[in-house]
């Protein structure tokens, strides 16, 4: 599903990722962890095509990202859900519109969009905040909107960057159950986190990053 070969990523002189090799199979559930600045976000953004590697290759479903046209990349992104560490919500759109957007770009039918968006917002516990704007939400609520937007389209791949950093432990458990249920439906899930809570009570495959290199696996 996701294959990374000898991936390097520099930002100017500083190296964010160095010689990274990783394979994530279809339907896998993988954690990426490591200290602050280890390169977790950079890794996820590379897989998403939001960043171009300095060298190395990324294959998604066998397609090489560096050989893909802009339009193809847009279409690929529709199959990937991404929970951004900084949420990236549109401040001028309501919670409902923000989540619906992920479906609207694919040209789905309005009634279908409405139904799905409602359901997903209910799943993350934000049914009552549908009409609010992102800046009127608490940090945790914003994070859940970002999660809802990522999962509303039943993505083939779910990339979640620190998805529970602003959530209390009860909500964290709920969200993890949500991720697991999506995973059970066949979605490949990659979660970047340094939350002990998430990592402790799981037997899932875990990749440890440090200074842009894989320093351990579980």
């Amino acid at each position, binding site marked *: 599903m996701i294959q990374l070969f000898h991936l390097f990523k520099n930002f100017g002189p500083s190296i964010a990722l160095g010689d990274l090799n990783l394979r994530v199979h279809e339907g896998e559930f993988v954690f990426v962890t490591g200290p602050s600045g280890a390169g977790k976000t950079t890794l996820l953004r590379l897989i*998403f095509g*939001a960043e171009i590697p300095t060298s190395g290759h990324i294959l998604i479903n066998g397609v090489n990202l560096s050989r893909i046209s*802009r*339009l193809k990349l*847009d*279409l*690929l*992104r*529709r199959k*990937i859900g*991404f929970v*951004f560490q900084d949420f*990236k*919500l*549109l401040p*001028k*759109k309501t919670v409902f519109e923000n989540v619906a*957007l*992920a479906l*609207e*770009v*694919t*040209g789905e039918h*309005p009634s279908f969009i409405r139904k799905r968006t409602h359901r997903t917002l209910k799943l993350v516990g934000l049914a009552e905040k549908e009409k609010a704007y992102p800046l009127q939400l608490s940090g945790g609520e914003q994070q859940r909107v970002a999660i809802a*937007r990522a999962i509303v389209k039943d993505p083939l791949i779910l990339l979640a960057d620190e998805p529970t950093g602003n959530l209390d432990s009860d909500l964290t458990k709920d969200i993890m159950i949500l991720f697991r249920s999506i995973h059970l439906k066949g979605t490949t899930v990659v979660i970047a986190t340094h939350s002990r809570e998430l990592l402790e009570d799981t037997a899932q495959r875990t990749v440890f990053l440090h200074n842009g290199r894989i320093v351990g696996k579980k």
Partner: protein
Amino acid sequence: MRIRLLPYLFKQALNNILSNRVVHAIGLGTMVVSLLIFGTFLLLFVNLNAWVQGWGHSMSMSVYLNDDISAAQRAEITSFIGNLAEAEIKRFISKDAALRDLRSALGSQAGVLEGLSDNPLPASFEVTFTDMDDRGTDLKGIKQALQDMYGVEEVQYSEEWLHRFEGLMNIIKLVGFVIGGLLCLGILFIVTNTIKLTIYSRKEEIEILKLVGATDWFVKIPYLFEGMIQGILSGVFALVILYFGYFLISTKKMYFLGLAGLDFVFIPYQYTLLIILISVSLGLLGCFIAVGRFFDI
């Protein structure tokens, strides 16, 4: 891009305008004022041209007739002049009238005419020319043609006056075109810049849309609609304000300015269409340029 997305994208554009209403209002204001400047210039140029043209009407030609001219010859001359689209016979001056005129024109020098037994002055037609400049009237040619007709003694017109008049028209045209051209360029620049600025503050929005998997056109089209709407609105507003302003200074009021007798007309309707067209294309163009800048994600 599926066509059935268009209504959705149009709705997006309307929503965007509403949620960025302050920025849009500022931008709209700038566009309206720019177009208004241009429109006012057009209005005044059109009228100034007409006024100066009208002022030049007094350009006239005198066709002096032989004393022994026959009625048929006279009729022929009349019909020749009548057939010239731009010329008109203002009056016929008989030999007596000519002497009277000369006497009053000489004023205190009229004494020179005292000793005359016989009236040596010829009768004449006074011919006036209208809209000369527009039709490129060939005064020299007309003079020649008339002079060659039977019964015509001489044809005269004031070349000096014509020269001066043409010089003035040249100056006004030059000034008009320089200002008009610069205004056009300037307004093009200002309007596209303004639209760029209104969109510039939404860089992040575009970035996020791209991250959610929107195709380029999905992102661009609402902006183009926004530009179009802004273009139409500003064009219409500018015209309405311009017409209102025109109405306030309409012909009647001009008496107070000592400009009685000048007709003050609104710009021809082709020009109003032109203004709308310009404003819409500027709106679209500005958006197109501005949005294009953010597509490297």
